[in-house]
């Protein structure tokens, strides 16, 4: 019973958050300077043409009416029609989501494969002063260098020295896996740097925390080898914060890596939203942001579930309101 009510509460909370996001984004795009008419119709349009466009999309109705109509459509699975392409937004999002998802997965996998071992290593060697300082410097740089700086740097360097990779020139994986990976390597690397740093730091902190536990001291006293202690006693108990941070990172990436997709001309959700903002394509911006928020909230719910599986004590505590 408690389990069911916990889930009902989570879903209700998620729905409330989404509703709030929908109101915010709906209002935000309409308060941006520059209307759809100037962008979509251009300067030569007559007042009659502007009025006709407004009437076709109901853009002169009161905002409350427009919002009600939009949210009702979203409830039916209709995210509206792009003012520019005249195509359903949902269909375009479906085409673009795989690009964004692939980018997010590549970055997340790289973050785990590099970040977790790095975090464990720096935790175990934390008493090595030089190594610790180098680790802190690297993680500081990884977190603080903006994506557009690192991305621009890679674009510049790899434009000159391709080394088998391509800058832009996206090709779907199904069409040519090799070309796809060559095009995705650089943008995934840009995203992976910050993600790897976050995962490594979280892993390091978690592992150092676990290393002070008495059961680890006992294992050392029993003469168990270090790799065995790390694998059997440390990693499992340090996994919870790592899973949480990884989930949050992946969720934010799935919502569209706006800057990286735009910088590398990847036809994903992020670049779709950026272009739509520039053109005041209301339906696209609203749908894109709502999708990003939905993914983010969903991933957080999944994180709660996974944490409960990894550490049943935390799962039970959460459901009982303890965490």
């Amino acid at each position, binding site marked *: 019973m408690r389990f069911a009510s916990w889930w009902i509460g989570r879903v209700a909370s998620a729905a409330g958050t989404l509703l709030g996001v929908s109101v915010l984004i709906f209002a935000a795009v309409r308060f941006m300077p520059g209307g759809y008419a100037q962008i979509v119709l251009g300067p*030569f349009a007559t007042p009659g043409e502007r009025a006709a466009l407004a009437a076709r999309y109901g853009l002169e109705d009161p905002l409350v009416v427009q919002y009600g109509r939009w949210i009702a459509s979203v409830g039916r699975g209709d995210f509206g029609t792009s003012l520019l392409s005249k195509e359903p937004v949902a269909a375009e999002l479906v085409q673009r989501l795989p690009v964004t998802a692939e980018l997010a997965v590549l970055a997340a996998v790289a973050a785990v494969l590099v970040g977790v071992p790095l975090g464990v290593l720096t935790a175990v060697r934390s008493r090595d002063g030089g190594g610790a300082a180098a680790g802190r410097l690297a993680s500081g740089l990884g977190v603080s260098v903006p994506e557009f700086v690192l991305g621009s740097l890679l674009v510049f360097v790899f434009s000159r020295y391709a080394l088998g990779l391509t800058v832009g020139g996206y090709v779907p994986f199904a069409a040519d896996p090799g*070309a796809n990976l060559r095009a995705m390597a650089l943008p995934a690397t840009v995203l992976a740097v910050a993600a790897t740093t976050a995962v490594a730091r979280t892993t390091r902190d978690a592992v150092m925390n676990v290393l002070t536990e008495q059961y680890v001291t006992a294992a050392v006293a029993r003469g168990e080898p270090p790799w065995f202690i790390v694998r059997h006693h440390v990693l499992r108990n340090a996994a919870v914060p790592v899973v949480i941070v990884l989930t949050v990172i992946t969720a934010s990436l799935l919502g569209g890596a706006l800057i990286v997709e735009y910088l590398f001309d990847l036809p994903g959700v992020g670049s779709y939203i950026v272009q739509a903002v520039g053109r005041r394509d209301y339906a696209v911006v609203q749908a894109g942001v709502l999708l990003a928020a939905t993914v983010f909230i969903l991933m957080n719910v999944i994180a709660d579930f996974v944490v409960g599986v990894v550490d049943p004590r935390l799962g039970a505590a959460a459901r009982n309101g303890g965490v």
Partner: protein
Amino acid sequence: MRTRWLAGGAAIAVLAASGCGAGGGPPAGPQKQPAYLAEADTGLPEGGRLDLQIHVDSGAATGLDPQGADTATSWQLMSLVYETLVTVGSDFDPEPGLAEKWEQPSPTKYVFHLRDDVEFSNGRAMTADDVVGSMERLLDGSATWKGQLGPLKSVDKVDAGTVEFTLDRPYTPFLAALANVPAAVLPMKEVADGSVDPAKDMLGTGPFVMAKHRQDVSWRFDRNEHYWADGAPALDGIDISVAPQGSTRIAGLQDGSSGMAILDNVDAPQVLKGARDVEVGTQATTDFFYLMLNTKAAGSKFADKRVRSAVNIAMDRQLMADAGTGGLGSPTAVTPAGLPGACDPAELPAAKEDLDRARKLLEDAGAEDLSFKLAIYSTEPAPAIAQVVQQNLEKIGVTVDIQQLDEGSWADEVYGASPAKFDAALSWFAGYADPAMVGQWWNPESAGFNQGFMTPDPALDKAIDTAVSEPEGKGRAAALEKLCAAVDADAQMIPLVTRPLIVGYRKDAVSPSLYGTEGYGNALRLAADFRAAK
């Protein structure tokens, strides 16, 4: 059959001789441009596809309908599928298109004789009814291009292969206006029966058929097997990807992931200097940047003609061409530089004045401490040109605050209200293929878009009307001079410098044909002649 040109080796020689290659070099304006920037090597075999990257997709409210296309990007893409009765040659003279010949029995009549071997890409023969129907659809609609067709009164079918156009009064740019994509011949039978919606479908007589389009992502064009010109198109197709970032287009050329790219960064030739197998050329265009001064805003100093004249006098167009466009553009008057009969911008009245005169005008107008905001958008090379404007005006004591806005905010400032909100703004016009065409936008009552910031000037309107109606000859040359002087004196929209179109391609991927100067911003005008190099 379309004219064939010299071998591709000549293309490289032309690029080098024009100073337009990757090395940059001295300023190369349209007057120095060769007729062809590159000519396809007809010795290469037919077949193969071209990977092309462009910076922005067609985005007209009227969708894929060529009659509603109002930007150079749309014209470029749609010209692969649609054709017009006449086209323009490298010297801007009208050349046969879907009409094999024409005559002008009177100043207000044009009779076109249609080719008898033209089919739409569905295999149906093009008829005189398609021509008449297309033009009537254009005249009945609200397309921008209708204004450029001037006083076209009626279009009538004479017989199965002949069509007669009647104008209300003489209009010299008529053939040039007829040569642009919005005046294309549509499949009117299919449009009438509803099997083709031009806003969503593309069915034309051009060298390619549109196989696939994803807005802002990509286009796929395949060869039109029914194309009328023998041996054309040489390519099997063109795959176009929309890559807004100039850096990725440059990288694509370098790493070979694209065969050709339209580049908007005037530094691109320098950046690509020495890149293996990459050729970069600057196609001069008749497009030009202009400065808008809002005379209608409440309390605007620009309502005083003396202030506008002072600003105009201070404009150093050569510096703009050299510094703002990297030496790739040219100073221009309202008659675009590069077009036959265009005015010499150095001979404009304001260009002959000195800065002391400008300072005196400001003093007389009580505007010694003039400062204003200049609204620009981020597309290259507008920011660099705006900086030159700022530096020019600093010399006469005017302070300019440059505001770089996104496209939506910029459009809102300039077109969003009447009177418009902005002080001054920078933009560019397509310059078209006749020196009097673009000048018509200086009449706000007929242009419409500038009514919010431009006050009608009867003397200027008269000069515009005379320039478009005067037939070729000495009379027209004088009329164009008067038009240039009138625009210069009015100074509400001040022509500055032409906008270069930079085209990069890989020699191991494509051998293209490119005019040296382009009137409609269409680097793909000769795409039917392109050859794949691998």
